[in-house]
């Protein structure tokens, strides 16, 4: 059965008649109380529309790494992400761009399975989120560095390597590789709590890369990072895409997104424009992505 979309955020779901327990199909918004007429027993009744994720499989396109349909997240009455339709192909570096509070982090968290969508579906690598079988193929670098600060760099890497069941030899080899990649080989045995903020960011990236993920979710990796290191980070990310890793990255430094192969502008939880950086600039006749975004918001508001 395909998911029927009945309006903004409204979906069709099967509920049970309160009097005879027969299955009734009705439409509504998640969490809303809807009135139904039961076709079996003919009685009128009130039911609470289910808030769980409809377990309806999307038609899976194997070339797509990320596929979302009507992805919506509400926190109480506040809509953080609304009706998001994303398709991201293998090998892309996709930028989720937008100001603070536009829904970038919520989107990434829904794609990683950290946050349950209120409605809609997300599919990553052909499996519905939250992933089970393909969990080891994705990497995630959260906004906060999320490291064990009372352990050394090596101990953090070792923990993550063992969580991903890397063999001893593989773990040793990968640890050397990622430490070389983030240029922190000298700091291997230092406690994370003694490292600077920028260094911690690099260690956090290393932990996300250790198990050679096919897809990498990076949640604002350049926030609070000095301009020099930001440039270095974008070099890292470009290198990774050259190695075939698909990257989904969020940032509010809009001009950084020039490095992306494709980007989407998010505002108030909605995707207001999407395309390659050049397309986005041309569309609004703007010199930079920042100008393009500002012009676009003006246009949407008017």
């Amino acid at each position, binding site marked *: 059965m395909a998911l029927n979309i009945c309006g903004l955020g409204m979906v069709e779901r099967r509920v049970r008649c309160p009097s005879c327990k027969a299955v009734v199909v009705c439409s509504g918004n998640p969490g809303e109380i809807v009135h139904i007429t039961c076709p079996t027993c003919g009685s009128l009744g009130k039911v609470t529309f289910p808030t769980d994720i409809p377990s309806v499989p999307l038609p899976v396109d194997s070339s797509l790494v990320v596929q979302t349909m009507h992805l919506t997240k509400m926190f109480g009455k506040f809509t953080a992400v609304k009706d998001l339709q994303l398709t991201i192909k293998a090998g892309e570096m996709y930028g989720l761009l937008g100001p603070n509070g536009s829904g970038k982090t919520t989107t990434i968290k829904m794609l990683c399975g950290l946050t349950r969508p209120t409605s809609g579906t997300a599919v990553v690598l052909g499996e519905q989120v*939250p992933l089970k079988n393909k*969990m080891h193929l994705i990497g995630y670098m959260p906004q*906060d*560095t999320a*490291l064990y600060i009372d352990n050394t760099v090596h101990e953090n890497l070792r923990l993550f390597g063992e*969580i991903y069941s890397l063999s001893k030899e593989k773990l040793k080899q990968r640890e050397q590789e990622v430490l070389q990649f983030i240029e922190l080989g000298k700091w291997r045995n230092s406690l994370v709590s003694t490292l600077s903020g920028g260094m911690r960011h690099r260690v956090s990236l290393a932990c996300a890369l250790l198990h050679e993920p096919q897809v990498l*979710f990076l949640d604002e990796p350049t926030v609070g990072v000095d301009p020099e290191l930001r440039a270095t980070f974008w070099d890292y990310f470009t290198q990774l895409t050259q190695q075939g890793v698909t990257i989904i990255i969020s940032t509010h430094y809009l001009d950084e997104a020039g490095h992306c192969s494709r980007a989407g502008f998010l505002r108030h939880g909605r995707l207001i424009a999407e395309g390659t950086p050049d397309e986005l600039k041309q569309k609004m006749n703007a010199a930079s992505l920042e100008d393009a975004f500002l012009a676009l918001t003006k246009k949407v508001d008017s």
Partner: protein
Amino acid sequence: MKMRRLFAFTRRALHQFRHDRRTLAFVLVMPLLMIIVFGYTFGGEPKGLNIAVVNNDEAIAVGGGTGEVSFAEELLAYLDDETFIVHTYSSQQEAEVDLHDARVWAILSFSSNFSSNLAQRFSSSGDATKVSVVNIMVDGTNPTVSSSVIRGIQGALQDTLKEIQSLFQLPVSTEPITIDVSYDYAGGNHAEFIDSFAPAVISFALMMVTTMLTIILFVNERRYGTLQRLLVSPAKESEIVLGYALAFAILGIFQSIVVLVAAILLFHITIIGNVFLALFVVILLGVGHQGLGILLSSGARNELQAIQFIPLIIFPSVLLAGLFWPVESIPGYLQPLSYLIPLRYAIDAERAIMLRGWGLEGVWIQIVILIFFAVVTLVGSIVLLKRRRE
């Protein structure tokens, strides 16, 4: 569940303890300080102690055949009924079984000629060489209790002697008369306060350390985002919880051994039971409190809030679990509450193992309760962690 992932969490936590020398010092110094400070200064006055009486005394005629008196009965009447609950036994053997199984703290036995010998000794025509003996057998494992028992019985003896003095109209100036008392300590050794305090401190220290460190560990896991990050990994909640449980068990064994060795070297405490069983019991308590710590940590947003839970756990445990004074000395209406405190079972079991030399057959009830506590809190914390997905 993969053992390698479980051990990965264990190793991480142990490395963290290793890097954090001050916490490690706290883990060891705290219980030693407790033993030294409290061990030397504390003494309570327990109440409601169960004692056994085997009374074979035959009453004698007094006052020219007008009445009968049993001095044993008199002595029993003088026992403070707030301190003692008297149970009468018909045979010494039965009473000794109950003393050995810790159902009574002491046995008072009177021989059949207790009253007649006393009368003989003090009447003008009597034989002064006749000796009356009250035999007191005391459970030696808890010195607070055994000294209370002895003090209480001696008080009653003095009162009885005064009565005898007036009965036989002895001048007050007469040499003080005495009743011979033989003491017999059950349980193999005569423990000093420090002996019975050591098993309690081991349990209490492990409970404190595990609860505090777990709360802080998990508050930090949440605050630094590592717990959320693990959601995007193959790590399972059971591996995280059990991995850390193993780390705390190792820390607990280390702590308990250091405390025991220090107590043996410094205070010459004696352990007659199986040390491995004693360690097993204390680890069970620790693992249960680790689960409790994880559950409590969800109610705290930062370390400061986490610290506020500590008194909540410590005060009921200190007051109700029999740490300093026996549960019998707590007011009656509070005693049922002590059954809700896991530490009580651990202390009971530890004292029975280390001081009485009991084996599994004597402490299995406490062990079952502690296993139940550990399973409930660990399963609870695994369920709680699974719900962290927003």
